[in-house]
């Protein structure tokens, strides 16, 4: 894909300049995320389509300035300066200049020019300037900057072919002359940029359409209603739009497994391995793909349309109290459906500290995999009485778990921002790009790439862990007796497996909350997915069913489990990071196993204390 000795060109621009759209148009799907150790923002690299010589574009995060005040700016600086060890030296710079936001882009140009690298400028949104009744003199701009300027017309991509041809001849690009004395003050750079804008832009027009939309979108009442409506649609669509696809994947992989295992009570080891280890593992990776695709599509739509900035403005105060920012809202809300797409969507948060804090608390939100566990235990142990004649106690407990998780997540985020991820609060700002119709091909490309990246990087880890979990349950292998029913055999196999032995070994650690080995086994099994707890209980307690609303299982639990222990299990599941897929994604998105381990351990500590506390309080009330 990317040839040896290829010429690397950095794509640089301010956020919302149309940089990524242009990059995607030039490279198509042939790209990968570059490995840049230690940071979470990673440059993506891709070969330019349709040119003979091998030119590779390096898509850097959008930045306002080269003086490093954020991680994005540091990464960009390192890549441009050739100190990013994972990337070869940059031979040229493609600066993406937004015609509707020239001042910012020219400010950046004045700094980039000092690097002394060959440069060309792609001038985006020129049609937008025309629509506003303004005129931009790109020929004058070209002579003022001393580099070639290529106007790109909107979503039709007119002008992209010329730019593509220019990319084939990087050696012929001009090196811009330095417009200002190096080391000049920021204020003077701004003054220089304004001077250029005044010369090339005939009429500095505000976008009237954006103004009119903002009258509603930022209105105290209508804006808030619109926000709730849009967030509701996003949350709902993670379920509704992806559910058919998820069900189909689930069904297909189950059918495949059933077909492979056949009618035999005990399948040969290699079939068991392939069916219940490998194929089940692949299935549990792919089942997340639809959710990721759908959420990324929607989030990218919000980002490219310009609404994301407005949503940030509306809720920033609320999240700002906890050291987060407005953009943390979508990752946290999405995590109520599933932490995997939620954590991935945290890439919309530009600040490193706020993004890390958001990612590290996202798994605390009540994801849908906790619901079967809650349903089972609340159904069995919380009396179904009405409180105040209005709401059932069971529903109230469930609601308290949902709200409580959110509140505690925010408090932890606040703590993280006070201790580990300090700073960056004062320089926070939201830029409001004009409203634009997103380019659908760009949305699909970005959603697809995120999904592909998840499958390749997090997916391999998930597959490996699920094979380990399979082995723990499958060994040592039990020889079936001829009289055994399949259900009896499965139960007996589970009871003497390494997983059960491990459960028995760690059970004493859970003595303060009186978890027996069946519960600790359920907790171990939950790493595959939290709802596995229900099927483990089903196999060990009632010996039949894994349906959380099953009355038989409920009764069996009521007879064999202390209610105080049941409440402690609920408290444990509220906090514990019991999901291998989330751990794999945490590693991918924070860039290190260390942070994944940190998240796992602090949530385990929370869960442990909460479970022990719940058990002892419950004992007081129940005895």
């Amino acid at each position, binding site marked *: 894909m990317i040839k040896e000795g290829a010429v690397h060109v950095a794509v640089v621009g301010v956020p919302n300049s149309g940089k990524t759209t242009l990059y995607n148009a030039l490279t198509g799907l042939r790209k990968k995320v570059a490995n840049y150790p230690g940071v979470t923002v990673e440059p993506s690299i891709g070969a330019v389509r349709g040119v003979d010589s091998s030119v590779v574009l390096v898509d850097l995060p959008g930045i*306002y*300035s080269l*003086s490093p*005040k954020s991680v994005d700016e540091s990464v960009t600086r390192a890549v441009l300066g050739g100190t990013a060890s994972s990337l070869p030296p940059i031979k040229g710079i493609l600066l993406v200049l937004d015609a*509707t*936001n020239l*001042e*910012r882009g020219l*400010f950046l140009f004045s700094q980039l020019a000092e690097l002394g690298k060959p440069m060309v400028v792609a001038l985006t949104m020129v049609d937008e300037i025309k629509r506003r009744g303004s005129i931009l003199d790109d020929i004058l701009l070209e002579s003022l900057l001393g580099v070639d300027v290529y106007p790109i017309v909107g979503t039709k991509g007119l002008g992209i072919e010329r730019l593509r041809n220019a990319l084939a001849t990087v050696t012929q690009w001009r090196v811009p002359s330095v417009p200002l004395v190096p080391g000049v003050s*920021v*204020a003077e750079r*701004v*003054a220089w940029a*304004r001077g250029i*804008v*005044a010369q090339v832009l005939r009429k*500095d*027009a*505000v*976008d009237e359409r954006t103004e009119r939309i903002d009258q509603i979108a*930022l209105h*105290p009442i209508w*804006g*808030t209603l619109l926000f709730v409506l849009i967030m509701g649609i996003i949350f709902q669509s993670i379920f509704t739009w992806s559910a058919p696809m998820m069900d189909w994947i689930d069904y297909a992989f189950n059918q495949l497994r059933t077909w492979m295992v056949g009618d035999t009570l005990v399948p040969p080891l290699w079939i068991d391995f392939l069916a219940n280890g490998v194929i089940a593992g692949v299935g549990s990776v792919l089942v997340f793909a639809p959710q990721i695709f759908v959420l990324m599509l929607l989030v990218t739509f919000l980002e490219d349309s310009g609404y994301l900035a407005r949503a940030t*403005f*509306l809720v*920033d*105060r*609320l999240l*700002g109290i906890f050291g987060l920012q407005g953009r943390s809202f979508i990752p946290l809300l999405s995590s109520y459906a599933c932490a995997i797409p939620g954590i991935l969507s945290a890439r919309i948060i530009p600040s490193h500290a706020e993004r890390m804090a958001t990612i590290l608390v996202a798994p605390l939100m009540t994801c849908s995999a906790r619901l079967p566990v809650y349903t089972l235990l609340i159904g069995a142990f919380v009396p179904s009485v009405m409180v105040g004649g209005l709401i059932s106690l069971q529903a109230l407990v469930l609601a308290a778990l949902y709200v409580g998780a959110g509140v505690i997540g925010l408090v932890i985020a606040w703590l993280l921002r006070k201790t580990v991820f300090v700073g960056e*609060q*004062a*320089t*926070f*700002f*939201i*830029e*409001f790009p004009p409203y634009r119709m997103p380019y659908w091909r760009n949305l699909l490309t970005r959603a697809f790439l995120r999904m592909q990246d998840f499958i390749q990087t997090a997916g391999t880890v998930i597959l490996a862990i699920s094979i380990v979990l399979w082995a723990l349950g499958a060994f040592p292998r039990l020889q079936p007796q001829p009289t055994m029913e399949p259900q009896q055999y499965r139960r007996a196999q589970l009871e003497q497996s390494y997983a059960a032995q491990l459960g028995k070994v760690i059970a004493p650690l859970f003595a303060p909350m009186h978890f027996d080995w069946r519960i600790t086994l359920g907790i171990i099994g939950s790493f595959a997915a939290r709802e596995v707890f229900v099927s483990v209980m089903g196999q060990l307690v009632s010996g039949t069913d894994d349906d959380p609303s099953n009355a038989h299982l409920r009764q069996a639990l009521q007879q064999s489990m202390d209610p105080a222990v049941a409440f402690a299990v609920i408290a444990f599941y509220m906090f514990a990071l019991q999901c291998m897929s989330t751990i794999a994604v945490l590693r991918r998105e924070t860039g290190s196993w260390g942070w994944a381990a940190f998240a796992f351990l602090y949530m385990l500590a929370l869960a442990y204390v909460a479970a022990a506390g719940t058990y002892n309080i419950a004992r007081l009330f129940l005895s």
Partner: protein
Amino acid sequence: MVALNAVPVGQPFRVEKICGPESFVERMYELGLVPGTVATVLRHSLLGGTVQLRTGTTTFAIRLPAAAAIMVTPLREQPIPHSCQKSGEMTASSSS
């Protein structure tokens, strides 16, 4: 001279001085809030805490603690620097 957080909505103002750590001042300058720039307060967010500003054709929001560190002069009449013709027209039409 007043702090920016005390400037009412719709009021044009001229940036005089920004106080605080160098990185903060630099970031505010990069956003276009260099001394001498004329800008307008467009709105405050519903819950407060964030203030939306416009200079020239760019619109952005900063938090109130940041706004409190920016000293400005509220303007009755609009001087005519190039970047503020638009807000100048708005004040002129609303006052006439």
